[in-house]
Each structure stands twice: as C-alpha cells, then as structure tokens.
C-alpha cells in the first residue's frame, strides 16, 4: 500500500517528517518498506505551450519550436516528432535540473540556438502522466496544465509516499481512512473524516427494475449497487489524478478514477458496469464449466465451476472481485452505470486469481478480507464524488444482503495482559489504549473489560489479539527483560544427535571439507546414483534440474566436485551428511522415510610440500579416512568386492568395495568407473556413501578401557611373495589365527610388485607382534610359532618366504 503524505494530511495534522512517520509506524507494527520522494530530482521545469513547429534548417531529424512559457517565448530544438502545435509540454529552461543532476544550458544545435529542452516522462522520472501520444516522445500534458506554472506544482510532486509492507492480518490498512486511524492511534491524534463515512444506510430510492441475486451466499454476503444516469465521461480533476498516481494507479477517466479513488480511500473495491449493456438480473454465482469471459485486458478466460462470477442473463460479465468483463466496460459513450460494491469470500478470490494468474488491486484486497459493512458507505462516497465531479447523477440503489457478521466483542482482563506480557500496566494505561484505538469498551470489576471491535478490524478476535494491541501501542520497549521462572532443565543432545556431530567432526579432522547441497536434484543423475524412479517428484519445481527429492547424496557431491574442478580446484576432499527421501510408494500417500546418509568424494592429491612427498587422494587414502571413522565410532568395517549390480557401471570393479559393519550392509566406496569421470569433467574421483543409522546402531557407545601388558613384546617381520590376486587381508587373518593368543597384532607394512618379484606375484611384508600378559616370552617360543605360520601360509597361499 502506497500512502501519500499529502492525502494523509487531509485527515490528520502531521508534524513529523515522512521518515519520522515511517519509523513510528514501523515501531508500531505497520512496517514501512521505504519512503519515496515523488519528485525524482528535477527543478525549474516549466509548463509551456507549443506555438509553432518548423523544420531545422540544417538537420533533417530535428525540429525548431517556439514555446510559450508564460513569461516569454523560447526557441527550442527537439528531435521528437510526437508534438503538435497547441500541445502543453514540460520545458527545461536554462538552469533547470533533471534527475541525476543534469543541468540544462542554452546550446547551439547545428546552427540554431536552443533556449532549453522539451522533456519526456522518462527524463523526468515520471509515470502515468500525460496523453497517450506521449509514448516514446515528449511528454504531452492534459489541456488543464497551466502555461508558465511549475511542473512539480501541477503534478503535486512536492509530496512523499510511504510504502507500507502490510502483514496479512492488517488488510484494513489497504485503505487511506484506516491508515489515518492507525497513524492517529500511534501519534495520539484524532483523525477528521467527512460525513459520508458515517453513512450506513442507502440514501437513494430503491431501484425496482434492477434485480440482484446472490446464488452462493457462502461466497458472497452482500452485493450493493448504485445506479447512475447522465454520465459524462471525461478526465478527472487534477487533484484526483495526482493522488491516484501517488498511489501507483494510472488515471483513466472520471468514472474509472472514482472507483479506484474510493477503493483507496475506504478499502472497498468497486466495479462500474455500463448499465445499458447489462441484460436482466445481476447474479453472483459460480461459473459453469465451459463458460468463457473476455476480461478488461482483452484476454479470453476459460472459467470453471470453482470461480465466482458476476453474471447477467447472457452469462458471466465479470470475474467477481478480480476483473471486469470487456463487454460491459465503461466507454466514452457510456450513459448509465451500475456501481458494484460487494463482499466476496477471500479464499475463493484467492484461488481464482491464482488459477488464472491474475492479480489486481481489487483481488489483493478481497483475498485478505474486505469489511462487508462498508459497501454502502463507499457508495455514498461514490455518489458524492460523482456530483462533485459532475460525472453523473446517482439515481437509485439496490442490493442483496445475505448476512453481516456480528460485531466482535473481546473480554480483556488486565491480570491476563500483565501475566502474558510480564508487565504491570495499570487500568488507566490500558483504557488509554482503547481510547487511542477509538474502540468502545465497558469496564467491569477487577480490571476486566468488554471491548467492542469495529468491523474494519477483522484481525481482532481473541483476548491475545487485544493484548498485542495493548502491548504495541504502549510500546514493546516497555516490556522488561526477565528469565523463565520454572524448573531448570538440563540441555543435551540425544545420543544420536551427538553421534551425528561426532561423525561430522571426525571427517573434518581427517581433512574432509563439509558441503551442503540442495535436497532436490536432477532426476537423471539421481536415477543413476540413487534409486531409479523412486525419487519423489516436486509438483512445482523451481527448475527441471531441481525436479525430484534426492535418494542419494552422490549427484550433489559430483556436481559440487565438477563445479570446483571446472574452476581449477582440482584437489578435493568433500563430504556431506544429509537426508535422502525414500518413498514407501509413489505417488506419495504417506510421508516418506527420511534417511540420513554420509557421503564423500576425494580427488587429486595433497599439496606439494618441500618436506614430504605428495599423497594421492585415491582408494587407499579414502579407506584411511574411513578407518578414522571406524576408530571414532568404535567399529570395524569389512570390505568385500562389490557384487551389487547397481554400481557395476558406476564404479571401477577392481577398485570398489562393499562395506559392512556387524554383518549389516553399511554402504560402499570406490573409484568412479573409467570415462564416467570425464563425463562429469572429473579426474578419477573416489566416492563413498554410508547409511548413518546402520553406523549409529553398530557403534560402540560405552568405551571400556583395557590395561596394557607389563611384559616386553617381541617383534618379527615376515615378507611373503604371493600370487597377486590373493587378498592381503586373507593372509593377515590367517596369520593372526595361527599365531594364537600370543600374537597380538599383525600389520602390513610393505607391499611391492615388480622386479625382482616375478610377474603375477606381489611381495607383502607383515610385522608380527608377540606378547604375553603373564610372562616374558622366550625367543624359542616365538621362533617356533613364526616358523609354523610361515610353513602354513606357504602351503595354503602358495607363498614364498622372501628373506
């Protein structure tokens, strides 16, 4: 809502600057988004009249005009060709300033001295001004412009506009009268309104010929109509045009302008029908399937049976509360008018305007709620303006009123006000608020009140609503700062929340960078990496690439890696912990399972450093990171070759693994399938995706400390040459088994392929650590164990001892 200060001053004596007023309103709960100075920064623009137009002697595209600016006649050269002799135009005389601090000086234009400049609306920062002919050329003012006067005076630009950003609970403030009430309350002033605002009952004889029928009383409670004759269509007066423009509405003609002006004033949207084009009874009803209507904007609208329309005997003539029909539009030849002032249910208007993608000043008011008590009052104002503007004669009135909501009464108890706010207001303070609001109230014993809510404040329904009124008008700053008095509670994360945090911190400690990607993704890639065709589609996605809810974190990771790689961030250690959405069935009938996954991607290598060699971010590097996770969670992962066919075309079969924990499937890791990385613009990234719940379930929650043995350990190394296909871990596990109780740990400390190891073989070196908790081991024991191990693995794995 754009509130003109000049207009507001009609009701209230405002001494504050627009900026001060904006602050007071904002602090009072009516947020002012901006204060606009209507003069965009021009000075000394005088209205002139074109007396003659001659071609420029030296330039084909220029014209030389004689322009009367009252005090003198100027010769001005212009390039525009839309002007005619007799036109009233804005003239920038020498010394004049245009927006952007451009100063106009007399100039020589190809041998002719130009004593100023004719301006277009754009150059002046103006909108909705002048005749249609102004488009793309010099601004041509209406004939009522006075030659010699200043343009800013004529257009009323010495004025500012407050741009209210209204919350949906205050649709009443889409009306100048109610804004004046609100400002009055906050400033402690009583607004002065004209008598028409008191009119509640029609002042005109009932029209016997025009019938009105509301067929859907649940969607329209009241339809009032004023019937007007002897209509003369012409431009409305300057003051009205200026106020409409300040409000952001283009002036059209006296009748249309009156409907808009009254709507701005009272908040009641109006519509004017050419009565001579109406056929029979005016009905408020739902459209019938298949009906059509060409609206004022010339577009043919397909209607359906959810849309409320105004119809006559021939069919729909207007989309109720949204837009009128072209057929019954007021035109230059209109003689008789039916002014509609009605109530329509907000929800229906909202749905219709959304369905058709049409929003208007009218629909935006109706959908938030218009006071049905005000239809006649607004028509009284229409009648007054018609006479004042000599635009027509109000003759008769007719209406169908189904019902009017009763006036609300709210019981307010001072005790509750003080208890809910944590304040100690007195009865006097609270009563002052009721008075500032101009609400009627009755005091009852013990600080209780019955407050009568005026019909324009539909937002006030319960005691808490009134408590907010009291609090905001006294000022939220008066509420003190306290702490809750109840029982003190212990705040802590649940074990699961704590665990999620631990996983996140473990991965960052291990060098990984956390990323956060959208929960919606492209269907193609989610189909590939997640669960094909089991991703939940969004009905109204932002873009097609964000069309489905993800079932895997990997597409987001790959996209992030690709974006980084394209920017030459080649070395990446990324992970994300987030939800994926697994529907029980599609289309969705119940909420899906939201599953937390942990996924990551590594690519490239560590930075070069003078001291240490670079580390490749490869399969083993990632496996190392996951082993950090194992340690942090107190679990052991088991890696086996992937046999899930889903990943066979996605991951390198020789460099990928399925991961289980406690015998349960946890997830997988592996290098991306050759060539697939190139499609993404990546270079051999290695990925993993783990199920958070499975990890959590298997994680050791209670840590039990073990003591360390007091007796020395004996360490023996064992290097074996084995066929290269034998998994190292199999040998390691067998050694552990053979070593029995005394063999504490077996670590692989070297793996080697190449000369002198024969082709098809690899050398794996194990470090065996023997120790007894009870005694010092003897060399002979260890030697005997070691040789047994060697003999067995030689036999079982075809291993050779590499001395």
């Amino acid at each position, binding site marked *: 809502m754009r509130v003109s200060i000049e207009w507001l001053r009609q009701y209230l004596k405002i001494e504050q600057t627009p900026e001060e007023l904006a602050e007071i309103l904002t602090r*009072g*709960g009516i947020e002012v988004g901006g204060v606009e100075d209507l003069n965009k920064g021009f000075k000394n623009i005088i209205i002139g009249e074109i007396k003659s137009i001659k071609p420029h002697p030296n330039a084909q595209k220029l014209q030389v005009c004689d322009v009367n600016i009252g005090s003198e006649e100027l010769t001005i050269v212009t390039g525009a060709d839309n002007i005619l002799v007799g036109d009233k135009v804005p003239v920038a005389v020498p010394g004049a300033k245009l927006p952007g601090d451009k100063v106009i000086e007399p100039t020589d234009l190809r041998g002719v001295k130009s004593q100023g400049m004719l301006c277009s609306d754009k150059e002046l920062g103006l909108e909705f001004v002048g005749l249609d002919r102004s488009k793309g050329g010099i601004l041509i003012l209406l004939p009522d412009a006075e030659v010699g006067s200043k343009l800013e005076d004529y257009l009323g630009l010495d004025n500012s506009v407050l741009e209210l950003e209204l*919350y*949906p*609970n*205050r649709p009443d403030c889409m009306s100048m009268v109610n804004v004046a009430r609100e400002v009055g309350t906050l400033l402690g002033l009583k607004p002065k309104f004209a008598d028409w605002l008191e009119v509640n009952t029609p002042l005109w004889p009932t029209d016997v010929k025009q019938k009105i029928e509301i067929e859907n009383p649940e969607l329209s409670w009241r339809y009032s109509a004023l019937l007007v004759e002897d209509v003369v269509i012409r431009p409305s007066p300057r003051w009205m045009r200026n106020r409409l423009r300040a409000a952001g509405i283009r002036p059209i003609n006296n009748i249309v302008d009156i409907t808009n002006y009254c709507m701005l004033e009272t908040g009641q949207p109006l519509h004017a029908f050419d009565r001579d084009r109406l056929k029979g009874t005016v009905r408020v009803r739902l459209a019938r399937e298949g009906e059509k209507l060409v609206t004022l904007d010339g577009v043919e609208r397909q209607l359906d049976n959810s849309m409320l329309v105004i119809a006559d005997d021939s069919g729909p003539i207007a989309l109720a509360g949204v837009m009128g029909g072209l057929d019954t539009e007021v035109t230059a030849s209109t003689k008789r008018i039916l002014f509609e002032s009605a109530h329509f249910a*907000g*929800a229906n208007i909202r749905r219709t305007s959304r369905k058709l993608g049409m929003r208007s000043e009218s629909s935006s008011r109706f959908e938030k709620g218009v006071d049905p008590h005000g239809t006649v009052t607004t028509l009284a104002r229409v009648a007054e303006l018609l006479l004042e503007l000599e635009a027509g004669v109000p003759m008769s009135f007719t209406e169908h009123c189904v019902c009017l909501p009763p006036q609300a009464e709210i019981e307010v108890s001072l005790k509750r006000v003080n208890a*809910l*706010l*944590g*304040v100690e207001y007195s009865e006097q303070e609270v009563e002052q608020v009721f008075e500032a609001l101009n609400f009627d109230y009755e005091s009852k014993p013990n600080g209780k009140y019955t407050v009568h809510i005026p019909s324009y404040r539909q937002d006030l329904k*319960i005691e*808490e609503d009134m*408590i*907010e009124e009291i*609090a905001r008008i006294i000022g*939220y*700053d008066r*509420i003190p*700062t*306290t702490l*809750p*008095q*109840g029982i003190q*509670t*212990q*705040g*802590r*994360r*649940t074990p699961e*929340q704590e665990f999620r945090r631990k996983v*996140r911190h473990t991965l*960052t*400690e291990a*060098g990984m*960078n*956390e*990323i*956060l990607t959208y*929960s*919606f993704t492209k269907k193609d890639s989610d189909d590939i990496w997640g669960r094909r065709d089991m991703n939940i589609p*969004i*009905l*109204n996605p*932002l873009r097609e690439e964000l069309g489905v809810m993800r079932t895997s974190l990997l597409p987001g990771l790959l996209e992030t890696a690709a*974006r*980084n790689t394209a920017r030459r961030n080649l070395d*990446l*250690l990324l992970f994300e912990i987030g*939800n994926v*959405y697994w529907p029980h069935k599609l*289309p*969705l009938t119940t*909420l*899906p399972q*939201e599953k937390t996954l942990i996924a990551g991607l590594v690519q490239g290598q560590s930075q070069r450093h*003078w*001291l*240490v060699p670079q580390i490749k971010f490869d399969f083993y590097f990632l496996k190392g990171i996951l082993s950090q996770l194992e340690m942090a969670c107190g679990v052991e992962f088991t890696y086996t070759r992937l046999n899930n066919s889903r990943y066979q075309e996605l991951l390198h079969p020789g460099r990928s693994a399925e991961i289980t924990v406690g015998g349960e499937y946890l997830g997988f890791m592996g290098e991306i399938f050759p060539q697939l990385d190139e499609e993404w613009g990546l270079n051999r990234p290695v990925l993993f995706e783990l199920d958070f719940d499975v990890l959590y379930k298997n994680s050791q929650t209670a840590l039990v400390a073990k003591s360390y043995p007091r007796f020395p350990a004996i360490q023996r190394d064992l290097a074996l040459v084995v066929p290269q296909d034998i998994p190292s871990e199999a040998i390691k596990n067998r050694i552990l088994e053979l070593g029995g109780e005394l063999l504490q740990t077996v670590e692989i400390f070297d793996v080697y392929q190449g000369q002198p190891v024969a082709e098809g073989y690899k050398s794996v070196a194990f470090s065996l650590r023997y120790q007894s908790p009870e005694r010092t081991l003897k060399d002979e024991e260890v030697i005997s164990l070691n040789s047994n191990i060697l003999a067995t693995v030689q036999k079982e794995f075809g291993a050779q001892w590499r001395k």
Partner: protein
Amino acid sequence: MVQKERMIGLKAELEKIKKETLHKLEQLNTMEELQDLKVKIMGKKGSLTALLKQMGRLSPEERPKMGQMVNEVRAKFEEAWEAKAKELEQLALAARLEEEKIDITLPGYRLLKGNQHPLSKVIEEIEDIFLGMGFTIAEGPEIETDYYNFEALNLPKDHPARDMQDTFFITEDILLRTQTSPVQVRTMEKMKPKLPVKVIAPGKVFRHDDDATHSPMFHQVEGLLVDKGIRMSDLKGILLYFSRQMFGESREIRLRPSFFPFTEPSAEVDVSCMLCGGEGCRLCKNTGWIEILGSGMVHPRVLEMGGYNPQEVTGFAFGMGVERIAMLKYGIEDMRLLFDNDIRFLKQF
C-alpha cells in the same frame, strides 16, 4: 745424602712434568688428545705414576713431603685438565649448534584439516547456546504434511498468510516444509502433558524463491518454551542472552510488533548492529539495528492443537534464519556462496 739427591732429582723431575704437562695441555684441541694426555700423565704407565713409584726409595721423612708435592701437582693438573675439557666441550657444542642450524623460515608440515560448512558451524553454535540454557534439540521431517506445516499452526487452507511462504508441493497434502515451526506442534504432541516443553529445532526448510537474498533451500532454528507462567518478557530475556552470546556482550535487542499466524502477540527482533554498534552504517542501512528473527507468544489455538490447555500454560516461540546469521557473523554478502560449495570459500571456516 744419596737420598737427598734423589729427593732433589725427583723434585726437579716433578717440576719438569708439571711445566711440560701444563704447557701441553694448553696446546690441545680435541677430547681425544686430552684423554691421551691424561693417560700419559696419570695412567698406569704415566709419568706421574712412574714418579710415585720411585718414592719408595726416599727416606720415611721425605716420603710424605714428596707425596704431598706430587699430589699438589696432580691436583693442579686435574684442575687444568677439567677446565680444558670443559672448554673443549663448549667449543664442540658451539660447533654442533652452528652445524645444526636450519632455515626456520621454511614452512612447517601441517596435517590435513578439513572444515565444517559455515552453516553447520553456526547451527552448532546456536545449539550450544541454547543447550546451555536447558533447551533440548528436537527434529522433524523435511517433507511435511499440510496439516503440520500450516493448519496446526493456525493457517487454514486459503489463508492469505500462506502467501508469505511460497511452497513446494509434492501432492495436495504433502509438501516441503516452509518453516521449522511444524516441529513445535509435533514436539508438543509427543511431550504432552509434560512440562516444560523446551526445545530448539534446527533444520532445512524450502521456499519457491531463488535470488541473491533467497535460496530455495535454507535453514532455520525454531525455539519453543511452553510452561506455566511463561511471559513475553521471558522471551525477551532469552533472546537478549542469545544475541549477546552470538554477536557479542555489548549487543542490545529490540522487539517490533509483527504478525505470524501461530503467535499472538508477535514480534520481530532486531539486534543492535554488530558492525557499527548502533551508530548506523551500511550493514544496518543506517538504522543501527539488524533484523535477526521472528518470535511471539504461542497462539492459544496452536497450544490446543499441540495438546495443551491455553488456560493453564503459555509459551513463546521464535524462529531464525541460519543463513542470515551466518552472513552477519562472517560478513558474507551473497547468500548463494553458501550453497556454491567452492572449496576456496569453505576452507576459511
């Protein structure tokens, strides 16, 4: 007489040994040479030892005298030897230190260390502040029903306030939650009739919006405290404490009337500008204040829908945008950076 001569002879020899030895000692440069000298003088075959062996031939009166003289020379030698040894040790140490000198300007080796995403970092920080005040952390689904996201929050179908939040729909009744507020009702349903209900609910929310200041997915932290006798002044106290923990001890807050369908009264909360301290600057658009969250007293209808009697309990609720707080805290100007995930950006946190 012979003995007397002997005595004189020994004396002269002792003097000679003393003189030569001390002279030699001066010349030495290494510990090895020093050790050698010691052996040559005091070893089994050393000159001083040889001298002592000859003392048996002296008269009993002269023997102690001679013994004393030898001991004096020995003591003197040992003293000089120790001093020399010390000197050489120090020289050797100095040489070693010099030799072991390294270029301390070369960079050290830093273990790989990753970073938390700024948003998860800010969420943890907010969580920790409220955990310290006795709140627990509640969670709810990101794909929600219309009922919990709107209706149970006093936003019936076709309510104009629904326009405040452009919604992604899955079906007519299932949607991506537009706010973390549905967790309020879910938590109350779970907790009823226990008191207090004292939770914060961080999480992802979704709105049909995408520009420099809006992301279609963003994060909120919801707060809810329901108990007997909760006042709006308590809301103010808790939020003042939070703001000071989050943005610095000298912060102040102010409440402005606002509207949310699920709170009454409702308030927008501004914190005094963390950049200029309230003087007015570019960040606060010269107002001295920065809007950080929405809040209010839980609407009686919402309490009812959560299973509590609004005649017996009251409560407050608040909700803040994590992105906004992260942007203020770290001076991030474009929200899209937070979801761009460029590692050059992420590595700063």
